[in-house]
């Protein structure tokens, strides 16, 4: 009889198949294995966002980890009005903005290597062509120039470019993360692109 009841009970889903909502609910009750799964899902995107905002691997490592720790501590106040993804993004972006404001204009580049796929990326192949004025530059030099130009942008402009042009988030998602309206996001994106274009004019066709 007991064996029959056990057989009828559905087997628990592996954590990788459980949706965010359930993982959040379990994490709110202190289940660290559920939170570990949430961290695994978003660690790369959170790290990348912070990295592109700081252009520094060590800072990105610290800030990304601290963001997840802070998110766990604040998880009880998470009401589910937005997705966990948006919420944790907001924590990471705000933490990084505060860090950059404290650091002010002191910039220390600590760049990650460009992966081997970059040389075959059609966008980059199209860009680095015979018509490029500075085509003698290799990818590493171009990467450094690009990061230096990014660091010249204001923090808000850099954040918008990072979230939209690099991370591929929509204007609406960015407006929720940055707690501003969509028009402000569009406007910041336009001016940020204009400035970047001016800084990098020698490296664009």
């Amino acid at each position, binding site marked *: 009889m007991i064996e029959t009841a056990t057989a009828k009970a559905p087997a628990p889903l592996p954590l990788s198949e459980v949706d965010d909502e359930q993982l959040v609910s379990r994490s709110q009750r202190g289940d660290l294995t559920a939170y570990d799964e949430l961290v695994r899902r978003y660690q790369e995107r959170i790290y990348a966002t912070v990295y592109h905002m700081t252009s520094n691997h060590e800072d990105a490592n610290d800030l990304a980890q601290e963001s997840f*720790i802070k998110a766990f501590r604040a998880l009880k106040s998470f009401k589910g009005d937005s997705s966990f993804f948006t919420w944790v993004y907001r924590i990471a972006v705000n933490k990084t903005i505060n860090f950059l404001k404290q650091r002010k204009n002191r910039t220390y580049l600590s760049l*990650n290597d460009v992966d081997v796929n970059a040389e075959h*990326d059609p966008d*980059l192949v199209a860009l680095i062509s015979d018509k490029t004025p500075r085509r003698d530059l290799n990818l590493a030099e171009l990467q450094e120039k690009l990061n230096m130009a990014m660091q010249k942008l204001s923090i808000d402009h850099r954040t918008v470019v990072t979230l939209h042009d690099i991370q591929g988030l929509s204007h609406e998602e960015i407006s929720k993360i940055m707690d501003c309206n969509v028009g402000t996001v569009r406007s910041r994106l336009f001016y940020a692109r204009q400035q970047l274009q001016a800084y990098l004019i020698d490296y664009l066709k």
Partner: protein
Amino acid sequence: MKSAPEDFENLSRLLSLKRHEQPPPGYFDDFSSQVIAGIRAGAAEPITGWQRLVEVLKCRPVLAGAYGVAVCGLLLLGLNLSRMMGDRPESVPKDWVSFAPMMLNVTSDWSSQGFSQPWSSSVAPVLSVEPPPGLFAGPRLNVQRAAFEFLGN
């Protein structure tokens, strides 16, 4: 001269290079375990009330502003109250007047029992009925009028 959207297109292409910047291989393998270790380490350390307040205020800037205004208001209220209390001139003399007869009685008892005043009190000049001698008052001399008689008058 190319139009702005076309230039932005090239800029977007250039920005795609950023997507190829990757952390060292295996970096994410133990990332989540480090986060969990950080959470456990943080749980072991007790959070003080002050740290909790700072965290709450960080998340709610309006509440932080209200808290600041409340603290300033209390400070101003305290300052005003202390100034009002300090401006009441009757408070201290009232006490002195109520004490003065008692002090006088004590001294009279001592003298009635045949004792000379056993101590010199610093409040005696204040309590004495006669006005204290001034510092610059001249000595009291018995002066007689001089009478001059001129010879031959």
